[in-house]
């Protein structure tokens, strides 16, 4: 008889008792995988006084929630979180474990994977099952798409960025089983979180902006970058960056768009001074209209957009800003 596969797990994340969108997106995708595998979806939620929030996990598609409620779990604590998840995974033997690619997930996932002696993939843009029902993480690399699998070790683990999978439809009538977890008492306490500070993000957020302006190495220097930033401001757009722009120190890491950064779904995308490298372009999902400004007519970016302007962005962008302003003023007056 074939062995019944273990469940598909999602390690849900909460910040100040709010479940992150990425966790719900992953649960909905886990549901699809679980149907194919003929198994169930289970979420692990660690926090304090989180009973109410389990409803969202069920509504998104979870069948069972392992819930750890304790003051010690209110915030991410690497040692305690790792210990609880590792212990539970050894007991329950999940087939797949998915974690959001957040700063917590990026630390917690390898801690758990290494303890379980299993593989972990990052930066995938899709997760599918192959003909042997093995999880394939689809990852852009070297101008193509690689499939990475973990053929032998279990669970199969992956971290996935917010926005890779769509917002789930929430079925408020769905319910499921809650299993309470205890905080083990033999945990080493070599890391103490003294304080967590969250500031209001600056600028226009990627989540809400219908327009994303992204800048790349072609900005040349900080002055060139400021012009691209001005364009974003004029359009009330979110400002994204390619990796070289982050490496140069013009833009914050959090604004990096692409495979190892943010995945965004704007209606309009304007890429300025960037080459259209796959690792960046996979960060833009489902954009209706795409525009590129690049001084090299042969740049691969022009194969991936609807409108192209071949020009030096440092010269062209200020002219474009003026034209946009003229247009906007005309709109106001008539």
């Amino acid at each position, binding site marked *: 008889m074939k062995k019944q596969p273990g469940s598909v797990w999602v390690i849900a994340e909460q910040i100040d008792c709010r479940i992150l969108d990425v966790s719900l997106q992953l649960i909905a995708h886990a549901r699809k995988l679980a149907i194919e595998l003929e198994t169930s979806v289970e979420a692990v939620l660690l926090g304090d006084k989180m009973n109410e929030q389990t409803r969202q996990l069920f509504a998104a598609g979870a069948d069972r929630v392992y819930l750890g409620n304790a003051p010690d779990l209110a915030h991410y604590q690497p040692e305690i979180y790792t210990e609880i998840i590792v212990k539970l995974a050894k007991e329950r033997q999940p087939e797949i474990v998915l974690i959001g690619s957040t700063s917590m997930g990026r630390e917690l996932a390898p801690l758990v994977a290494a*303890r379980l002696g299993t593989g972990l993939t990052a*930066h995938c843009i899709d997760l599918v099952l192959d003909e042997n029902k093995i999880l*394939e993480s689809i990852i852009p690399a*070297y*101008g193509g798409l690689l499939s990475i699998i973990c053929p032998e070790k279990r669970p199969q683990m992956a971290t996935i960025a917010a926005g890779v999978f769509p917002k789930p439809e929430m079925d408020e009538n769905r319910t499921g089983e809650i299993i309470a977890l205890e905080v083990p008492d033999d945990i080493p306490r070599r*890391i103490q979180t003294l304080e967590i500070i969250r500031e209001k993000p600056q600028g226009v957020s990627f989540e809400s902006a219908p327009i994303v302006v992204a800048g790349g190495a072609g900005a040349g220097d900080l002055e060139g970058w400021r012009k691209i930033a001005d364009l974003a401001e004029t359009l009330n757009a979110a400002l994204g960056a390619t990796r070289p722009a982050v490496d140069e120190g013009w833009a914050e*890491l959090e604004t990096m768009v692409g495979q190892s950064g943010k995945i965004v779904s704007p209606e309009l995308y304007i890429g300025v001074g960037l080459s259209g490298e796959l690792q960046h372009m996979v960060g833009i999902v489902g954009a209706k209209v795409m525009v590129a400004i690049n001084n090299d007519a042969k740049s691969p970016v022009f194969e991936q957009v609807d409108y192209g*302007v071949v020009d030096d962005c440092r010269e062209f962008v200020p002219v474009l800003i003026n034209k946009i302003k003229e247009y906007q003023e005309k709109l106001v007056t008539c």
Partner: protein
Amino acid sequence: MLKIVVCVKAVPDPKEAHKIKIDPATKILTRSDVPFVLNLVDKNAMEAALQLKEQLDAHITILSMGPPPADNIVKECLALGADQGFLLSDRAFGGADAYATAYTLAKGIEKIGPYDVVLCGMASSDGSTEWVGPEMATFLKIPVVTRVNEIVEYDGEWWKVKAGLENGYRLVRVKLPAVFTVTRDLNTPRSLTFSGIIKARKKEITQWGIDELAVPEESAGQKGSPTIISNLATIDSKRTVEIITGTREEKAEQLVQKLADTGLI
């Protein structure tokens, strides 16, 4: 004395890395002659070690796993002021994923001897997983803090550091020995000096293979890697572009019209 190990990785020069392509027919990497350089954020890990050495009685060991040409980046770190360097190099280490890399590096650290602090970059430019630091810490059975962007207190057995979060940070106390992965916000790396390069000539690099490390063959390289590449596909989700032509003014005007047609501006 504070014993510091800095893990540094030789990566294909990111400025040329896009030339490395997979041939869809043969599934072989083309242009693998792109030169190796020191992973960018590893320079910040190196700088952190140098600054600690300026403040405290410290000793800096460089550790890298990679092919023989990775020798050069270890040398570069010695020239920056590290005291000794180790390169873990063996055919059997090839094809390692983050798990096998972390395991081999952990074995290297154990063989080097007692240590207090292990510094890594946040991510490598080619793998970019961020896994190696935390997985290595797991194998060494010591705590890890990732994305460190400030070392607040560093005297004594408990350190205090700030680690980056989405739109903020966490302030963490951690007991040594520990692994820290650092971000580019931590510091500004110094440049090589001529005298540093001269001094580094006298420093030696120890090379260890699988036998010296006593890593079982099934735990190293591709054999020790839980994940493998199973398939490779090309993408052809291309759009048909309309190139807007004219003088700079005309191009801008036409583009504004196109943008206006979307109803978004």
